[in-house]
């Protein structure tokens, strides 16, 4: 009897020790080292209001919403060419908000023109269609399966946030209800999402606040899996003035994110002196199980990024394009 008690006690101590060791196990910290861009003239690396950064096998594409243009760079940072201008005609943009690349085509969410434009890689117009909302996010799963995300108006109850069209503008499906509380400012902050491509024709939905769940959706808009990000990844609570003299609490999850090789790269927001949240200098690498694999530290604040293996293409808080390599 006494022997059993001792064994049980030993087991208990072992369990507690192993659990606490798991909790405090330090995550590897890597450094993002900046690569000097190949361009001698760095003017082209500065943008007015860059909103999206994507890449293909050879090049890097940055969409500038204010200048309504797409600038193309080599992956070593040399400026190659640009296309697009303000307007409503083919190949022209009105406050474009996002873009994606699939094969030899570029898909642009042409925000203020409330349409999608499909261009070749030289900026020539191939196809397009109008939508009834301001498209804020775009993801081309297939040529005939274009997923759009929009920020709901917050005026008339819950709205569908995701809409999938073919290249002729025919609606294939709609998914995901928006948050609705009746406070348009608060709802807008909570309904801010990122849509990122998966490796198996699927995609991920990541919210910037109030939710530590990454949702894997299939190409028909059905929820396949919910990946709960570990509590070791700390969300930051802030109190926001939500209009009408109201204050609301918001949990800051990530400023921006990227997905590469089934890993999630979450840009960790940081606190300012005024208890506000702003872009940080750290990325948390989250694996498919929702656990932290590593942290990547940057020498400066970054706002948007695209990840390709150990290379990170990023835009800093001064809207400048920067290239980094992760040193382990």
């Amino acid at each position: 009897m006494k022997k059993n008690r001792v064994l049980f006690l030993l087991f208990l101590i072992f369990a507690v020790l192993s659990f606490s060791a798991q909790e405090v196990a330090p995550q590897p910290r890597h450094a993002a080292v900046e690569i000097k861009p190949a361009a001698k003239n760095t003017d082209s690396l500065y943008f007015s209001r860059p909103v999206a950064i994507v890449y293909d096998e050879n090049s890097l594409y940055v969409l500038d919403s204010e200048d309504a243009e797409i600038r193309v760079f080599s992956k070593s940072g040399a400026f190659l060419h640009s296309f697009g201008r303000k307007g409503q005609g083919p190949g022209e943009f009105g406050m474009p908000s996002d873009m994606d690349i699939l094969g030899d085509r570029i898909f642009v969410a042409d925000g203020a023109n409330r349409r999608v434009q499909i261009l070749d890689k030289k900026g020539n117009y191939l196809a397009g269609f109008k939508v009834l909302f301001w498209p804020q996010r775009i993801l081309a799963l297939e040529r005939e399966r274009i997923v759009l995300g929009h920020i709901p108006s917050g005026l008339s109850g819950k709205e569908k946030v995701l809409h999938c069209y073919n290249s002729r503008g025919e609606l294939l499906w709609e998914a995901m209800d928006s948050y609705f509380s009746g406070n348009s400012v608060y709802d807008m902050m909570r309904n801010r999402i990122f849509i990122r491509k998966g490796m198996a024709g699927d995609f991920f939905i990541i919210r910037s606040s109030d939710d530590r769940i990454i949702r894997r959706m299939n190409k028909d808009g059905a929820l396949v899996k919910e990946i709960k990000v570990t509590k070791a990844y700390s969300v930051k609570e802030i109190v926001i003035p939500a209009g009408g003299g109201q204050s609301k609490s918001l949990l800051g999850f990530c400023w921006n994110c990227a997905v590469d090789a089934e890993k999630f790269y979450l840009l960790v927001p940081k606190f300012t002196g005024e208890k506000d949240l702003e872009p940080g200098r750290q990325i948390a690498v989250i694996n498919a199980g929702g656990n932290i694999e590593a942290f990547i530290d940057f020498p400066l604040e970054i706002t948007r990024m695209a990840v390709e293996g150990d290379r990170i293409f990023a835009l800093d808080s001064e809207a400048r394009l920067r290239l980094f390599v992760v040193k382990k």
Partner: protein
Amino acid sequence: MRKAIALTLAAVFFLCAFLWFPQASFAHSDHCYNDWHSCRQRSFEADEGWIRTTLMLTVCDIAWGKCQILD
């Protein structure tokens, strides 16, 4: 006869007024709505802190209300 003419003119006047005013109002509300969306989008893309962003969004809402009342 006079009464009939007066009634017809009044009917035509009110018909015109009713047909014209709602159109003008809708056109205007459309412009206000577009501006509101642009304002919200700019606030979101400004990469400002979240409290600042909410303040900017609040300003967008106020401007939208003002646009609808004044214009």
